[in-house]
C-alpha cells in the first residue's frame, strides 16, 4: 500500500490559520443573498450562474439574430445600415459561440461532473469561481463595445487584414480581441480544473470505463479547450499588438501573409466547433438510455468515437480554407481527413438509434429534445459531409448553405441537446420538474421554427446566396426563402422564450402546491447524481459512493430475481443518500476569485483607451493574487468540528 500514505503530520504547535489575509479582510463566512453568490465556490451555484449568464447573453445574441432576419426579409431592405448589420452579425456569432453555447456547456459540466464522478466539489473550487467570473466580466466587457464606439465588424472569424486598424478603425475589434482573450482565460482555467476533477476525484471503484458518457464527452471537450484556447490567444495577441502598438504581423505591405491568421484561427476554431457539440452528445447519451430504459448501446464505442472526434478535430482545420488558396496538396490532405471524421460521428448517431431500438420509450420533453438532436444533427452532419469534399465546397463555402449547416449542428445539435439536459436535470438542481405540457409546446414550436428558419437557408445557399450580406437584390431569386426564413425565426424566437415561460409557470405551480418534494430520482435514471436528494444538498454526497459498474445506481435498483428476470428491487428513493452529511467539510467562500477576475477587464480597458488604467488594474490584481495565495483553501472555523485540512492552496 505504498501509494496510500498517512496524512502528513503537522509540526507541533504550528497553525496554518490565516485570520486576515493581508490584514484587510476576513473571508466571507456563511454569507447569504448576493454576497453568497458573489463569493461562492460551490460548483453547483457556479454551474447555475454559468447557465443564467448564458441565458442573459442568449437574449443579446437572439435579438441580434432577429434583427438580421428582419433586415433580410425583403430585398434591398433599408432597415439596417451596412455598418450596423456588419456589427450585428459579427456580434451575433461571437456572443452565441463564446458567451452562450460554450458557457452552457460549462454550466452542465460544472454542475454535473463532480456529481457524476461522486465528488464533493471540483478539484479547485476557488479557481472554478474565478473561471466563471472572468468569463462573465469578459463577456460583459465585449458587449460594452456597443456603447463605446461600436461592436466588432470583422465577422466572428475576423480575417486579416480586414481586422486591421486600417480597415476597421473603431475599437470594436479591440473589444473583440481583448474580451475574448479574457473569456479564454476562464475557459483555460476551467478546463484544467475539470480535467483534474474527472481524472483524479472519481468515486472509489469508478474506473474510467465506468464513467458516464456525459462526463467522458465533457472531459474530451475540456482537453480540446486546453489545447485550442492558447492558439486563439496567440492570434489575438498578435492582432492586438498590430492594432494597438503598430506591430506588423498582418501588415501585408511588410510582407506578412494574411493566411497566418486563418491558420491560427482555425487551429483553434475547428476544435472549438467540436467542443460546442460534444457536451450535447454527452447529454443525450444520458437522456436516451434513461427514457428508453436500456443501457447506452456500445458504451466503449461511444467513448472512443468521442475521443476520436476530439483528436481528429485538431487535424482538419484547413477545411475552412479550401478556397483560400492553400494549394491542391493541402486541400487533398484536409479533404480526406475531414471526410473520415464522419465515421466516428456516424457511429454515435447509429448507437443512439440502436439504444432506441427495442426500448420502452417515455416520450417526455427531455426525450423529445434528445431525439430531435439525433435527427437534426444528422441533417447538419450530412451537409457537413457534402462540403468536406473540397471541390464541392468551392461552390458552397461562404454561402447560406454553410449558415444552414452550422445552425443545424449548433442549434439543432448543441442547443437542442442543452434544452434536453435542462429539462432532464432541472429537478436535480431546483427540486421541481418543468411542466411537461408546456415543454411539449415548447418542443414543437422550436422544432417547427428552427426548421422553417434554417431549412430554407440550404436552398438559398445552393441557389448562390452568399453569407454576411447586409442586403440582396430583387432579381436574384432569393426573395421567397428569405421571407420564409424570417417568418420561421420569429417562431423560433417565441420557442426560445418559452424556456423562461416554462420555468416561471413551473416554479409558481410548485410554490402554490407547497413545494412538494420531487424525490431524488424522478426519472428512474442511471448515474450517481440521482442517488442524492433533489435539489442537490450543499455537500453533494453524505458518503463517498462506492461504484462497481457502469450505471451503478441503476444496477442497485434493478437486479435479477431467482428466475433470472430483471426486476426492480428498490426504487431510487429508497436507496438514495438521505442528504444529512454531518461533519462534512466544504471549501469556504472567498472574495479573491471575483476580485482577481474584476481586475483583468480593467486592464483590457486600459489597453484600449488609456494605458494609465493598467496601474490600478495591476495593483488590484496583485492584491487579489496574494490574498488568494495567503488564504487557506478551507476556512477552519466554518460550521465544522471535524479535524481540519492542513494544506495551503497556493494557486
Amino acid at each position, binding site marked *: 500500500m505504498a*501509494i*496510500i*500514505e498517512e496524512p502528513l503530520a503537522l509540526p507541533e504547535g504550528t497553525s496554518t490559520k490565516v485570520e486576515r489575509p493581508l490584514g484587510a479582510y476576513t473571508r466571507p463566512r456563511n454569507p447569504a443573498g448576493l454576497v453568497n453568490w458573489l463569493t461562492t465556490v460551490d460548483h453547483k451555484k457556479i454551474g447555475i450562474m454559468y447557465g443564467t449568464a448564458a441565458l442573459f447573453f442568449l437574449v443579446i445574441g437572439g435579438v441580434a439574430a432577429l434583427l438580421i432576419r428582419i433586415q433580410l426579409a425583403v430585398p434591398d431592405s433599408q432597415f439596417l445600415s451596412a455598418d450596423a448589420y456588419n456589427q450585428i452579425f459579427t456580434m451575433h456569432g461571437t456572443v452565441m459561440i463564446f458567451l452562450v453555447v460554450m458557457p452552457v456547456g460549462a454550466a452542465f459540466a460544472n454542475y454535473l461532473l463532480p456529481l457524476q464522478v461522486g465528488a464533493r466539489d471540483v478539484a479547485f473550487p476557488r479557481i472554478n469561481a474565478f473561471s466563471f467570473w472572468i468569463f462573465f466580466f469578459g463577456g460583459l466587457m465585449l458587449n460594452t463595445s456597443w456603447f463605446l464606439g461600436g461592436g466588432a465588424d470583422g465577422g466572428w472569424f475576423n480575417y486579416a487584414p480586414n481586422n486591421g486598424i486600417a480597415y476597421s478603425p473603431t475599437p470594436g475589434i479591440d473589444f473583440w480581441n481583448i474580451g475574448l482573450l479574457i473569456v479564454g482565460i476562464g475557459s483555460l482555467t476551467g478546463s484544467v480544473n475539470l480535467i483534474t476533477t474527472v*481524472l483524479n476525484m472519481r468515486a*472509489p471503484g469508478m*474506473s474510467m470505463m465506468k464513467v458516464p458518457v456525459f462526463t467522458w464527452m465533457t472531459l474530451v471537450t475540456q482537453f480540446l479547450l486546453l489545447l485550442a484556447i492558447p492558439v486563439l490567444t496567440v492570434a489575438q495577441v498578435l492582432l492586438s499588438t498590430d492594432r494597438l502598438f503598430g506591430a506588423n504581423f498582418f501588415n501585408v505591405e511588410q510582407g506578412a501573409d494574411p*493566411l497566418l491568421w486563418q491558420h491560427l484561427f482555425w*487551429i483553434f476554431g475547428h476544435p472549438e466547433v467540436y467542443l460546442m457539440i460534444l457536451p450535447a452528445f454527452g447529454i443525450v447519451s444520458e437522456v436516451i438510455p434513461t427514457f428508453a430504459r436500456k443501457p447506452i448501446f456500445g458504451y466503449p464505442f461511444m467513448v472512443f468515437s468521442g475521443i476520436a472526434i476530439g483528436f481528429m478535430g*485538431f487535424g482538419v482545420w484547413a477545411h475552412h480554407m479550401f478556397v483560400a488558396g492553400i494549394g491542391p496538396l493541402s486541400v487533398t490532405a484536409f479533404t480526406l481527413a475531414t471526410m473520415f471524421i464522419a465515421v466516428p460521428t456516424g457511429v454515435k448517431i447509429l448507437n443512439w438509434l440502436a439504444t432506441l431500438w427495442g426500448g420502452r420509450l417515455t416520450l417526455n420533453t427531455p426525450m423529445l429534445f434528445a431525439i430531435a438532436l439525433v435527427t437534426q444533427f444528422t441533417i447538419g452532419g450530412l451537409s457537413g459531409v457534402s462540403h468536406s469534399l473540397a471541390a464541392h465546397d468551392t461552390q458552397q463555402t461562404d454561402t447560406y448553405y454553410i449558415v444552414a449547416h452550422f445552425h443545424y449542428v449548433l442549434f439543432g445539435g448543441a442547443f437542442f441537446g442543452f434544452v434536453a439536459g435542462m429539462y432532464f436535470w432541472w429537478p436535480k438542481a431546483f427540486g421541481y420538474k418543468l411542466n411537461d405540457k408546456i415543454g411539449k409546446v415548447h418542443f414543437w414550436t422550436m422544432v417547427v421554427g428552427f426548421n422553417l428558419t434554417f431549412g430554407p437557408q440550404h436552398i438559398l445557399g445552393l441557389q448562390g446566396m452568399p453569407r454576411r450580406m447586409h442586403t440582396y437584390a430583387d432579381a436574384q431569386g432569393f426573395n421567397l426563402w428569405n421571407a420564409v426564413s424570417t417568418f420561421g425565426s420569429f417562431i423560433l424566437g417565441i420557442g426560445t422564450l418559452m424556456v423562461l415561460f416554462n420555468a416561471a409557470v413551473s416554479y409558481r405551480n410548485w410554490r402554490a402546491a407547497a413545494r412538494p418534494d420531487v424525490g431524488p430520482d424522478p426519472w428512474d435514471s442511471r448515474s450517481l447524481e440521482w442517488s442524492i436528494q433533489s435539489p442537490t444538498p450543499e455537500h453533494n454526497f453524505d458518503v463517498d459512493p462506492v461504484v*462497481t459498474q457502469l450505471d451503478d445506481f441503476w444496477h442497485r435498483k434493478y437486479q435479477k430475481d431467482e428466475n433470472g428476470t430483471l426486476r426492480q428491487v428498490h426504487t431510487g428513493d429508497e436507496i438514495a443518500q438521505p442528504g444529512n452529511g454531518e461533519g462534512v467539510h466544504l471549501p469556504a467562500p472567498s472574495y479573491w476569485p471575483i476580485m482577481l477576475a474584476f481586475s483583468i477587464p480593467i486592464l483590457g480597458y486600459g489597453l484600449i483607451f488609456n494605458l494609465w488604467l493598467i496601474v490600478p488594474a495591476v495593483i488590484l490584481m496583485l492584491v487579489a493574487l496574494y490574498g488568494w495565495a495567503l488564504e487557506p483553501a478551507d476556512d477552519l472555523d466554518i460550521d465544522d468540528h471535524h479535524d481540519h485540512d492542513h494544506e495551503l492552496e497556493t494557486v
Partner: protein
Amino acid sequence: MAADTQLHADTSTDTHVGHGHDDHGVHPTERQYWLVFVALFVLTGLEVAWSYLGLEGVALWLPLLVMMTVKFLLVAGAFMHLYFDLKILNGRLFAWAFGGSLVVAMSVYVVVFFAFDMFA
C-alpha cells in the same frame, strides 16, 4: 486500511483511493542533478561551437536540433522529474499530459509550415 484493500480487489487497477501526496516517488540525488547540469552545459557549448563551424543546410541544423532535443529531454526528465514519475503509480499521466500536448503542437505547426511551403 482494510476497506481499501477490499476495494482494490474488486475495482479496476487504475483507480485507487488514497490521499494527496501519494506521488512522492524516488527523486534523484544531488549528485545526479549536478551531472545533468554538466551535461546541459556541455551540450550548450557544443551547440554554440557547431554554429561557428560555418556549416549550412542539414549539416548545420540537424545536429543542432538533435542537441536541442537532448537538452529538452534532460530538463524535462531529470529536473521536472518526468523520468522518475514514470516509476510511481499513474505517474506516466504527467508525461502523457505534457507529451501529448507537445505532439499535438508539433504536428499542427509542422502542417502549417507545409501549407506555407516553408520546406520547399
